[in-house]
């Protein structure tokens, strides 16, 4: 027999007969959910990343303090990437005998590759987007330079040997924020005019930048090529390495979106497992007959596996097409929120959907199919001979393997995936135990009740296997739905809380010690509140526990960069309010003179600094040693002043320092900033309003994406509900027919069905609330770094929601049985 052709013929017949329809629909929705979430998140993530890449003005930025090797540009041209060159260096400009330190930025045509420049044509004029750049002989200035130099639009200033006309005021440049604290007031000049200034010599402190943009694939290829070359002295930055606060928002959003996709898979896995179980029950007769007619066990397994795989492939293909359509609708709905065009879909989610469909079938259907091969041919005489249960180990191993592969792959975060898997496994065991306990407790209870209660309880305790499976299925489904709901609410609240309206939008740096009191007083007079003025000391890390720190000590590019850069270090008696000590202890009043450091957790991980390590810094030519007394987590996205390393006042208090502060400056008080700069010209004021708007926009769109993705998970939950209800359908058909034949009233049966499913749903809801709370606590603490609190209202909602949803769905599904004459039902049995 040609098993393949035979199986295909059977599949055609199955499809016609609707035998595999439930499983196919479960799989189709699973794949559609995964694919649409995949397509959607892929496109949104790329759009978010592209939007976020504005902070680099490019997708990728290569920088060096030496002229960049020409081959970098040649390769970009060969790969048809967009590119622009920029130079950045400090210099002094001259106007009417006044000089002012500026940070010159020379740009080539094409700049910026991502994002847009905004300019003003006059002071207090409206700012507007511009696609232009300064023409040859012109410069654009930052607004704060005008009062400092007492100059105006149209005036001439001198930069090096060449004069330039001031033609515009820069109100926003996309990559301005990338090196927040290294910037003096900005001056933008065409790169072609730089040679004539005569400012660049071999010893100039100039940074050379090559900005690149292209499709993600082009950028990945280029990045891989650059990494392979391993050119010394260059730094390659993409959005994820550009800004910690943006990286944090993006990472959290991305993690959540992937978690949402994974939960959709999980729900569908349970739905497929339940549908497969029902399929096996319904196909046991076919299997017995095939065995009776001479098919070997292997042939039976092959026939059913091929049928199932064929079905899986068809359902998955339809699912990916459906997913493609749905994501397109969603993108149309929210696409206008993005300033950039949403990138086109890639083929990856399509492939991912297909593979997901097949993996779900292998993990959650194949073990059931193996059961079909074990059906005794004697079943043709004795229908009670069910397919023997398969090895528990095999089914658990197959499900676990499939689950692990899919979750780790989809979530892309081993830690998160493993936590989720272990939480769900623990949940599975608890749900199974509770369902067994329920059946055990219900058995005596049914004798104490009567009427609908008695039938409802009897139905649950009579079929312990089905009850366990339903309770476990519903419980797992509710758990992931609740989990996602909790994390979603926490995440959105956290994002909104991260950047309240009065978040600092101004930084003052380079405040001299003697200016601290004056600045503080001036701000206070203006009604401005700060978190304080913090000392800032520049220092370079020399050694950790006596081992010299150099870029060669690390493989990680970030670590290499950090190892060669000066840090901003501070000293403090108290930790910042948004800092949390994660290990060790903050110093007490009596310990302020101890030679101790507090290190930011991420930096400690990157550079391999353990608690208790001895650090040596070089500060202004002298070396200081101290022990790491504690590690801190820092909310970088709070826009408060924060430091990677803080020392005790006793250790660093005597070192030369400048001061820094941040505060919220409302628009109507901007004149205060002008007076402050005029009174203290050495202070540099940095306006991060535009950057904050940018971060807020990313978070808002991320929140919208999160809400949209949640809808898919809910849809998957509904399918699971249907599959769960169907799990006991065959038993219900028989029982209902018998009970009605024996004269039990329709209303009694209807009420008993309602009670049975309400009990099942309520219990599943309650257990899942406990599980979801436990898992969300673990995720909040370790993965999302979100605050967590026990939400008792969620427990009540889960209890009531579970009882309500399952009882309504179960009763609706059972209604046709109650409306069909028992004789008709009995004939079908």
């Amino acid at each position: 027999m040609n098993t393949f052709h035979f199986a295909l013929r059977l599949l055609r017949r199955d499809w016609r007969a609707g035998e595999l329809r439930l499983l196919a629909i479960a799989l189709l929705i699973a794949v559609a959910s995964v694919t649409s979430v995949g397509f959607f998140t892929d496109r949104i993530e790329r759009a978010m990343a592209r939007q976020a890449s504005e902070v680099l003005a490019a997708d990728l930025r290569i920088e060096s303090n030496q002229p960049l090797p020409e081959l970098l540009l040649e390769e970009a041209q060969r790969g048809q990437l967009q590119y622009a060159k920029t130079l950045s260096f400090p210099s002094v400009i001259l106007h009417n005998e006044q000089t002012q330190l500026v940070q010159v930025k020379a740009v080539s045509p094409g700049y910026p590759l991502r994002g847009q420049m905004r300019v003003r044509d006059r002071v207090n004029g409206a700012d507007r987007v511009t696609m232009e750049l300064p023409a040859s002989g012109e410069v654009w200035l930052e607004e704060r330079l005008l009062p400092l130099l007492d100059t105006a639009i149209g005036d001439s200033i001198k930069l090096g040997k060449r004069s330039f006309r001031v033609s515009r005021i820069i109100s926003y440049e996309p990559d301005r924020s990338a090196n927040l604290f290294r910037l003096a007031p900005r001056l933008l000049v065409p790169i072609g005019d730089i040679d004539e200034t005569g400012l660049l010599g071999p010893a100039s402190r100039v940074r050379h930048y090559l900005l690149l943009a292209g499709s993600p694939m082009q950028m990945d290829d280029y990045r891989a090529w650059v990494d392979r070359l391993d050119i010394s002295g260059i730094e390659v930055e993409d959005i994820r390495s550009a800004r910690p606060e943006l990286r944090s928002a993006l990472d959290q959003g991305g993690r959540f979106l992937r978690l949402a996709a994974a939960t959709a898979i999980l729900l569908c896995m349970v739905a497929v497992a339940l549908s497969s179980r029902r399929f096996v029950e319904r196909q046991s007769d076919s299997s017995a007959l095939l065995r009776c007619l001479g098919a070997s066990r292997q042939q039976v397994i092959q026939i059913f596996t091929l049928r199932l795989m064929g079905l899986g492939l068809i359902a998955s293909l339809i699912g990916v097409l459906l997913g493609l359509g749905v994501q397109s609708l969603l993108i149309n709905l929210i696409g206008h929120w993005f300033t950039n065009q949403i990138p086109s879909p890639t083929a990856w989610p399509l492939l991912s959907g297909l593979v997901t469909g097949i993996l779900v079938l292998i993990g959650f259907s194949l073990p059931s199919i193996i059961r079909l091969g074990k059906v005794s041919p004697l079943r043709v005489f004795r229908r009670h001979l069910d397919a023997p249960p398969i090895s528990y180990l095999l089914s658990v191993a197959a499900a676990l393997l499939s689950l692990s592969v899919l979750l780790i792959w989809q979530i892309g975060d081993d830690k998160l995936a493993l936590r989720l898997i272990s939480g769900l496994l623990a949940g599975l065991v608890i749900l199974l135990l509770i369902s067994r306990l329920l059946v055990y407790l219900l058995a005596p209870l049914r004798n104490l009740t009567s009427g609908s209660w008695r039938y409802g309880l009897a139905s649950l305790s009579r079929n312990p296997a089905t009850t366990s499976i339903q309770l476990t299925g519903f419980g797992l489904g509710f758990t992931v739905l609740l989990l996602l709901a909790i994390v979603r609410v926490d995440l959105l609240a956290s994002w909104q809380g991260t950047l309240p309206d009065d978040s600092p939008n101004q930084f003052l740096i380079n405040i001299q010690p003697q200016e601290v009191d004056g600045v503080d007083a001036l701000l206070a007079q203006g009604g401005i509140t700060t978190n304080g003025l913090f000392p800032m000391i520049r220092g370079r890390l020399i050694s950790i526990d006596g081992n010299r720190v150099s870029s060669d000590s690390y493989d990680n590019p970030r670590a290499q960069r950090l190892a060669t850069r000066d840090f901003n270090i501070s000293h403090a008696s108290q930790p910042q309010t948004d800092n949390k000590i994660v290990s060790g202890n903050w110093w007490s009043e009596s310990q302020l003179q101890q030679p101790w450091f507090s290190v930011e957790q991420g930096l400690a991980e990157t550079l391999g600094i353990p608690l208790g390590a001895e650090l040596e810094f070089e500060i202004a030519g002298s070396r200081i040693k101290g022990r790491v007394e504690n590690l801190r987590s820092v909310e970088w996205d709070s826009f408060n002043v924060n430091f990677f390393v803080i020392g005790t006042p006793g250790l660093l208090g005597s070192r030369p320092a400048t001061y820094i502060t941040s505060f919220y400056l409302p628009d109507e008080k901007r004149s205060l900033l002008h007076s402050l700069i005029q009174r203290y010209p050495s202070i540099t004021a940095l306006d991060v309003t535009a950057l904050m708007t940018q971060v807020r926009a990313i978070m808002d769109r991320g929140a919208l994406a999160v809400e949209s993705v949640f809808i898919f998970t809910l849809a998957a939950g509904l399918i699971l509900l249907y599959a769960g209800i169907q799990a006991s359908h065959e038993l219900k058909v028989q029982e209902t027919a018998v009970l009605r034949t024996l004269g039990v009233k329709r209303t009694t049966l209807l009420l008993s069905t309602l009670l049975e499913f309400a009990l099942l749903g309520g219990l599943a809801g309650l257990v899942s609330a406990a599980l979801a709370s436990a898992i969300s606590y673990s995720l909040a603490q370790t993965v999302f770094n979100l605050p967590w609190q026990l939400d008792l209202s969620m427990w009540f909602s889960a209890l009531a929601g579970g009882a309500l949803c399952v009882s309504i769905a179960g009763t609706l599904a059972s209604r046709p049985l109650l409306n069909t004459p028992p004789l008709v039902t009995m004939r079908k049995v």
Partner: protein
Amino acid sequence: MLQPSSNQHPVTARGLVKFVETAAGRIDILHRIDLKVSPGEAVAILGASGSGKSTLLGLLAGLDQASSGEVRLFGTSLNQLDEDGRAALRAGKVGFVFQSFQLLSGMTALENVMLPLELAGEGKPEEAAKAALSAAGLSQRLDHYPSQLSGGEQQRVALARAFAPDPKVLFADEPTANLDAHTGERVADLLFSLREQSDTILILVTHDEMLARRCDRRLYLRDGVLENGA
């Protein structure tokens, strides 16, 4: 290859015993059954409900294993074969007719009849199946699903399925028990007519004396013991 004795007695049972162990103790179903069936012979096994008729049929067809004793089918001892081996021995050579028809509900009459032909590797299963259904008087019902057929028609489809691969042995388990007297008689007529045309051995389990009388030999199973056997 068939052994010489198989030509004389394609189905034999020697000292066949079947019992099951339950929580309440051992239940004996069959006691030392001996049986030899000659080529072309029709044997009826009669007995009350629960006497072990279907168990005996299952053992003779290799669907179940005896607790002790031996069944030889076409000269091959079923004791020497595993379940797959016994299935391979049945393929195309053994037909079944069941009390509850055992038609696959998702398949049409034609597809149900094609099933054993496809499993036996028949080259043109559709043609052979159509011929079998035509012989059963169902050429107008090829594309009907079991639910669209009457009980009698369903059993005729089952007979067409059983005879389509031209089996050497046909095992029939109460083939008329689910039918009314008139329909049962017509199905029985068809069964014996098809058997005569193909010269197939028939081993029929029934509690219907009238049906049993149409067989060459009648055996009685009482309390697990076969009487008038061998």
